């Protein structure tokens, strides 16, 4: 899993957990609030139902009390307005109107309007139903207004109807409001034709409940509807919940985006550096390319990357320096492995490799190849007489002379103690002998050791077709010995 992914997870996971826990907790609070609200709503609806039932019961009780006294029966029979008014006016504290009407529907008395009587209610539904059924309790229109009307028949001898009494409560917003336990709800009273509400505002309704009531007399029974208004607190909680959720999502997205850009700006260079290093480790690139890439990465990024890039570049510089040192050392070691440490000429081992290579070229292309073997005359004597130090000096001087007068294509080596082998490529025997002669003369004329002239004996031969390297060397060695035996300081070619 990449660092980027790990960082994303490290940042988003706690954020997500915290957000989830908070949303869960808030949801719990909201649920609890809604439960309480439902409980409260049920209690309120029950309260209102009881209030309406209580009102119906009170009005009916009042109608019953106002229908039974003997004085009222007598007063209805005699059309005694004063008696009927005195009875009804004492009960109008909690109701809007009480009237008495005779059997024909003529109102004989109406409280609290002392001088409003004589009108005919005989055609009203509540009068007719009261006479028919003995009782009426319903919602109807009285004096052009919606009213709850409760009626009872007044009977003589508890038998013969002599009139009715009607207890009237006008349905007004204030009256309906008094039936409510508190704020936050509206009570609507309605029948098929009209309705009255305790509050006419257009506040949004959360839920509504329809209640039946004792005011259910036909033909237009009354219905009461309790409307529970939207609660600001609940809406605030829901709004908070939605906001929190939205904010969490937005915050999460913002964090993601920021993390993306941060990762892009700050983590990608690390990945690039890692990839570059890994490419180097796979040997897909060399150190120089690595350094170039690191330099490029570090040049465009933040200070940390820049510092890392600088450090890496320094490191690569050190490594390259080390490599150069190693290479140099290797070269030296190689040189040491390939060269004679005293004279600097190729050593025998290296010359074997050269010979093998040149012999292969001769066998492939048939080009001429000659060998010159030189041996320092009386070298043991020099060592013995003048010491090894002088001997070494002679060796070095001979090497230098041979190297200085050799051709570019000649390959020189110290073949043995005081023996030197020169490979002359593209050189036949005659040419090789000439070269050897030049070598002999130069050394003989130029080198002296402690006052004594140093000379060399040269054997020269050319490679024959199909000849092996050993045979070739044997012949040149043989030639050199002939030179020794011929008196030294001479060249013998065979």
């Amino acid at each position: 899993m990449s660092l980027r992914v790990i960082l994303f997870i490290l940042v988003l996971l706690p954020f997500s957990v915290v957000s989830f826990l908070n949303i869960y907790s808030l949801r719990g609070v909201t649920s609890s609030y809604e439960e309480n609200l439902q409980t409260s709503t049920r209690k309120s609806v029950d309260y209102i139902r009881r209030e309406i039932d209580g009102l119906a019961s009170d009005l009916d009780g009042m109608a019953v009390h106002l229908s039974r006294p003997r004085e009222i029966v007598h007063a209805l029979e005699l059309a005694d307005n004063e008696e009927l008014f005195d009875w009804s006016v004492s009960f109008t504290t909690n109701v809007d109107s009480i009237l008495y009407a005779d059997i024909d529907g003529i109102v004989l008395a109406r409280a609290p309007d002392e001088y409003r009587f004589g009108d005919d209610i005989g055609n009203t539904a509540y009068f007719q139903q009261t006479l028919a059924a003995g009782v009426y309790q319903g919602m109807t229109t009285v004096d052009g207004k919606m009213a709850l009307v409760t009626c009872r028949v007044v009977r003589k001898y508890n038998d013969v109807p002599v009139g009715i009494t009607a207890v009237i409560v006008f349905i007004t917003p204030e009256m309906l409001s008094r039936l409510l336990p508190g704020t936050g709800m509206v009570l609507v009273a309605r029948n098929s034709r009209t309705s009255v509400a305790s509050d006419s505002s257009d506040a949004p309704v959360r839920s509504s409940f329809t209640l039946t009531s004792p005011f259910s007399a036909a033909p237009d029974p009354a219905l009461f509807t309790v409307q529970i208004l939207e609660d600001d607190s609940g809406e605030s909680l829901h709004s908070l919940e939605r906001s929190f959720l939205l904010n969490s999502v937005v915050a999460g997205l913002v964090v993601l985006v920021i993390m993306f850009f941060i990762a892009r700006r700050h983590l990608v260079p690390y990945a690039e550096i890692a990839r570059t290093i890994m490419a180097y480790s796979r040997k897909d690139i060399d150190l120089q390319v690595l350094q170039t890439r690191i330099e490029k990465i570090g040049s465009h990024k933040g200070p940390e990357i820049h510092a890392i890039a600088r450090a890496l570049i320094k490191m690569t510089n050190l490594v390259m320096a080390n490599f150069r040192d190693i290479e140099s050392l290797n070269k030296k070691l190689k040189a040491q492995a390939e060269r004679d440490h005293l004279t600097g000429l190729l050593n025998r081992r290296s010359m074997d490799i050269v010979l093998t290579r040149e012999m292969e070229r001769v066998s492939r292309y048939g080009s001429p190849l000659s060998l010159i073997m030189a041996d320092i005359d009386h070298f043991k004597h020099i060592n013995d007489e003048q010491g090894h130090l002088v001997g070494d000096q002679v060796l070095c001087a001979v090497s230098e002379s041979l190297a200085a007068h050799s051709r570019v294509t000649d390959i020189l080596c110290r073949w043995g103690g005081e023996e030197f082998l020169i490979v002359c490529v593209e050189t036949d025997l005659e040419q090789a002998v000439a070269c050897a002669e030049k070598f002999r003369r130069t050394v003989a004329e130029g080198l002296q050791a402690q006052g004594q002239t140093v000379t060399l004996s040269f054997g020269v031969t050319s490679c024959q077709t199909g000849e092996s390297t050993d045979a070739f060397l044997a012949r040149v060695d043989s030639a050199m010995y002939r030179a020794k035996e011929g008196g030294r300081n001479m060249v013998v070619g065979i």
Partner: protein
Amino acid sequence: MARIFTMVFCVFLLTTGAYADTVKIGIYPSNDPAKLQQVMDIFAAYLEAKTGDAVGAIVTRDYNELMRRIQDGSIDIAWLNTLNYVRLKKDLPTIQYISTYIERNEITGNILPFYQAYIVTRNDSGIMSLDEGRGKLFAFTDNGSTSGYAFPNMLLRKNGIDPHRFFKKVIFLKKHDRVAEALRRGAIDVGAMSDGTYFTMERKYGDIFRVLAKSDPIPLDAVVAGETVSEEKVLLYRKALQEMPQDHRFCRNMREVLGWSAAGFETRDDSFYDSVRQALGD
């Protein structure tokens, strides 16, 4: 000294004992009871001053209560309207006539012991005669009232009208001023009331009523004593009432408060009410 003191004390006792009675005077509620009580308190104070008795005024609930109480003696003296006097005298012959209430006639200005019953409508009712009251709403005062029921009822029947058949509905409003007010407000179309009530309304509201019919003169109210009241007491109160000036505070209050044109009392006798008996067919 002791003898003199004793004699003086005995005279004092005799004097106060002979006249220091508690007398209750009851009146029928033909008008607003509170207003009646107000004027009757003045009436009682006058009599107390004239007689030396402790006089208290009582306004009964209705005519029936007044008659019952004079019968049972819980009221000593009663102010009865004409009808109730005639009926009570018939039922309780032992009641004792004291005096007759008199008024100043609003039309002639004469002081007379008579008044009239009026059948009245509003000027704007469109009803110009009794006949045009057919199917309308009619009100009496109380079936115990002389000018509020008995004489208007006779007047209607004399004109061939059975009120319970002729009118849409007959309502009893129990008091003359209630009939007048109901008429004024349009609650009824035609109503029966005393002439005094009519004239009171006229003074208060102007010419808003029309009289459709008037009764024959009706003897005014009688003040009577129960059978338990002594003859001397009766004479004492008769004299006191006879001596009341026309402009006495009581009379002024009767006019101001009740609208009755009270002018005091004069002494007649039981036979003065025979015309009522004849009218009622008794």
